[in-house]
């Protein structure tokens, strides 16, 4: 009952808990990708407090976590999603294969962001943490600021992002490039219901 309540409680309604629950029955490639997601989730969990300002950043730990994520993204991830691999229990949505090109792009983007995070590991945190300030050069003072990629639009992964560019960001910004990629994919391609 407590477990169910926790599940309904929402903080845990997604991913890790559900995946842990589901692991018992999963086999083959579905199980492999659940394990991969779990290891990435654990990597994120370990360094999250450093990014949130709850713990001092540990560059070595951040590098390790970034490598774990990079190793499970890109082709390594795509291989674990063969066409129609929907055997129960899975949280994958069929939309993945209907929009395969888009799914591939996100998997590749994750690899790029994770490699950038590895490079950024020693950079320290954003001073204020507020995007509008940290990117004021890019977003401020434009007459068209409500559209076309300015402050009222353009939420996607910026074009032309490379591990090198991400590697020059404050480490928490680089981490956000990773987490927003996770989130974008989960929002669109993961079943969230119990």
């Amino acid at each position: 009952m407590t477990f169910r309540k926790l599940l309904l409680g929402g903080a845990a309604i997604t991913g890790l808990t559900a995946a842990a629950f589901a692991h018992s029955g999963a086999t083959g490639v579905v199980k492999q990708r659940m394990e991969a997601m779990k290891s990435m989730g654990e990597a994120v969990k370990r360094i999250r407090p450093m990014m949130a300002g709850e713990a001092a950043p540990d560059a070595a730990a951040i590098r390790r976590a970034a490598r774990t994520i990079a190793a499970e993204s890109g082709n390594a991830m795509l291989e674990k999603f063969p066409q129609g691999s929907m055997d129960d229990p899975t949280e994958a949505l069929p939309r993945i294969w209907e929009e395969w090109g888009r799914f591939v792009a996100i998997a590749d983007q994750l690899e790029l962001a994770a490699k950038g995070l590895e490079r950024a590991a020693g950079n320290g945190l954003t001073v204020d943490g507020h995007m509008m300030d940290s990117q004021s050069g890019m977003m401020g003072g434009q007459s068209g600021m409500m559209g076309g990629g300015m402050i009222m639009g353009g939420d996607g992964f910026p074009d032309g992002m490379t591990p090198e560019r991400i590697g020059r960001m404050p480490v928490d910004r680089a981490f956000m490039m990773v987490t927003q990629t996770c989130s974008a994919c989960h929002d669109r391609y993961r079943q969230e219901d119990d």
Partner: protein
Amino acid sequence: MRRSLSILSGLVALAALGGASLAVWPIGAPPKPAERDGDAQRGAYLARAGGCIACHSDPGSGHPALTGGAPIKTAFGTFIPPNLTAHETAGIGAWSIGDFARAVRQGVAPDGSPYYPAFPYAFYGHLSDQDIADLWAAFQGVPAQELIVGTNDLGFPFNMRAGLKLWRAAFAEGPPTEPVADRSEVWNRGRWLVNGLAHCGACHTDRNLVGGRRPGRYLAGSDDLPDGDNAPPIRPDDLAEAGWTVSGLAYALKSGIMPDGDTFGSGMGEVVRHGTQWLTDADRTAMAVFLLDNTTPAKGD
């Protein structure tokens, strides 16, 4: 002199005829209040916090920002968030700031018809004239785009807009946002955002058969969101039980990452990407402080 006097008396007569008062009769060219005192930068910030951009844009479609949102499928039919760019016909380019204020704060279209509550105007009623002027300034800076992505598709009887007048009478009041005297500035700021502009209750408060928020279910979660999504309960006890802290929650609103290392789902990721990640750390912290210490009574409990 004589001539100007006669003009003046003529004008007085005209004003009296129209039932208008000289006091409110504009002199000179009608001012554009948004250009006069609206701060577009602040308005864009409010538009982020309020979800305007999230809901009225559909990045997946390849269309420019604010040219119309992805369809919202509900039990009543499908809603299409309209184009809010400055285009004269496809968008809101022909509106006045008065039209805009009435639409946002009261949920009434320029032609006088009521909006469907899929547009969460009930949560925007508290916005000040300055907030409206700032928002208006920001929206006027959106390049006009002649694009209409679709129209609402609602079944009977929900396609009868007049019925919405009854709905308004029953449900159009949002949760309270006015400052509480003995609470901190941070808590009050959080309350203004959570209960108002950020409209958390639009999803996290369950709705009844006609789409009204159920008074006793304030922020108690909903399993019945569009597209089969659900929203967890976010009352203080629920959040505490699930292990949330102010810092963890504020960071989740920034990054989409929960303390267990997983990401938000069910559309909350979008709320973060298009909305709360753009806010200041101070505003995210205020929302977390308020949510974990929220004393808003759930009516009917």
